[in-house]
């Protein structure tokens, strides 16, 4: 009964954020890096709808480019984790054997690290940059995808239709790609949606800690971290970027719920 409302609210919020991100590629009200020393730490005024930061940069423009950074990082990271994780999960779950055992031992060890912690460690190695973050978060969240996909594949390979496909003399690669993979789609789709939210949150947390996409590029996380010293004099600097992270996550959670309701009407 919530499904439709979830879809509507999640869809509206998501489109607003996505629209801002795409618009930022071609137009922003001001340059996100242009400094305006006279209007430093200014509240909302005409010309600076969301006010300015400690260098007098326009916050609305930085929010818009930050939206693109967050969404593109999250999209590429989820694509990375889902593709690698599904491939490994499918192969290990379908073929089993010693390779599966070793892979799962390693996977369990990786799962003993909370995702963001592993990302923190990897960022420390490859250094904070946009693509560094994508690789770090991608590697950090792949083990979760592997576990879910492998679990689904393990139950699917016992099903009659897989046995039937084998009995018909189909090769194992054909059976795997034609019958097992399409049937694992629902759990992968639900996982990918949650993953998208986790990655947005993790990326902004890393940026907040100073280990994300480095300045002067704007991300919601590094805007929040720059706002901390000005909490009492320029509250809008912290209210606005964090509010956008929360709205984006809310939209993803609502869309995720709608997707789950649609794929699993039992709930």
């Amino acid at each position, binding site marked *: 009964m*919530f499904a439709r409302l979830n879809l509507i609210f999640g869809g509206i919020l998501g489109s607003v954020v996505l629209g801002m991100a795409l618009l930022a590629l071609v137009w922003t009200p001001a340059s996100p890096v242009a400094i305006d020393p006279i209007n430093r730490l200014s509240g909302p005024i005409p010309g600076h709808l969301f006010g300015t930061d400690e260098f007098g940069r326009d916050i609305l423009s930085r929010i818009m480019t930050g939206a693109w950074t967050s969404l593109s990082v999250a999209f590429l990271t989820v694509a990375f984790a889902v593709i690698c994780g599904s491939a490994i999960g499918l192969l290990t779950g379908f073929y089993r054997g010693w390779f599966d055992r070793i892979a799962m*031992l390693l996977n369990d*060890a990786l799962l*003993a690290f*909370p995702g963001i912690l592993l990302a923190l*460690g990897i960022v420390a190695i490859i250094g904070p940059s946009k693509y560094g973050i994508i690789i770090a978060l991608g590697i950090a969240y792949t083990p979760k995808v592997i576990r879910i996909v492998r679990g689904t594949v393990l139950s699917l390979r016992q099903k009659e239709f897989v046995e039937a496909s084998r009995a018909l003399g189909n090769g194992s690669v054909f059976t795997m790609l034609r019958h097992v993979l399409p049937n694992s789609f629902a759990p992968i789709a639900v996982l990918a949606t949650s993953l998208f939210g986790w990655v947005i949150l993790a990326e902004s*947390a890393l940026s907040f800690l100073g280990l994300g996409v480095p300045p002067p590029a704007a991300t919601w996380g590094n805007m*929040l971290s720059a706002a901390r010293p000005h909490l*009492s004099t320029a509250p809008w600097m912290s209210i606005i970027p964090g509010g956008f992270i929360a709205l984006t996550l809310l939209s993803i959670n609502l869309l995720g*719920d709608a997707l789950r309701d649609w794929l699993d009407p039992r709930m």
Partner: protein
Amino acid sequence: MAQFLVKRLLMAIPTLLLVALLVFMLVRLIPGDPALILLGDGADANSVAAINRRLGLDQPLPVQFFIWLGNVFQGDLGNSILTGDPVLALVWDRFQLSATIILLAVGTATLIAVPVGIFAAWRQGSGMDFTLVALATLGLSIPSFWLGLMLLMLFGIQLGWLPVVGYVSFGQDASLAITYLVLPVLTLILIEVGVLTRMVRSSAIEVLRLEYVTHARAKGLSERSVLFRHVLPNSFAPTLTLIGIVLGTLLGGIAVVETVFTLPGLGRLLVESIYSRDYPVVQGCLLMIATGYVVVNLIVDLLYPFFDPRVTLE
């Protein structure tokens, strides 16, 4: 029970060994020479070699690993490159603060979420249910570091009720220490209540649909005893698994909350030692967090049968 415990503990050993290996490799891969950090960029080759010898960094990597592992087994995690303090004591000290915050927050959140989630499930589809689910979804969508900043702005700056920066330990002044912990704990409670309420609600909905609930109602039991005797225990078991996951995730994600509230916890120690390339401390923190995660999962596995007797320990 004892047999299961031993088996489960033995199963945790290869995982922990691999965790140790991963931590060791991860930290060796961090670019930057600790000797140069210690001495400054202008250091001559002889002093660099001397430092590397002293820290054992001139040995081949596998040798370094086994020396390190041997020391870890003896409770020796090395000394901080920066301050020379023993890492184990440092990490343990910081861990206690982080663990206190996390346990207080998750404990309180569970006490709130279980009745609220069951109530929402019981009234599934009503306006009340809708409001509670909407609030829970909102709660879990708010990033902890932003909520922390907002609470700090309200209670610390606008109202001036609570301190804004710094920390006083329990040993120094217990009542003052509590004032520093109120906001970080409250921040985590507000978020985790959302996560846990949704989980309790959906597992309670599953349980309410089962035949033994219909049977209990048909028997003429009051709604109160149906909910408390039948629905609560059965929907708590899946929630227990989630509590384990939440504890582990918070252990990894506590760094941002500690940064907002300038608390000297494990997460901040980790981030600071990544900045200063203090290898042994980074290793110690990662090892502590991963071990904590494995231990939490172990405890959850052991507790599970008490809440769901269908699961046996064998």
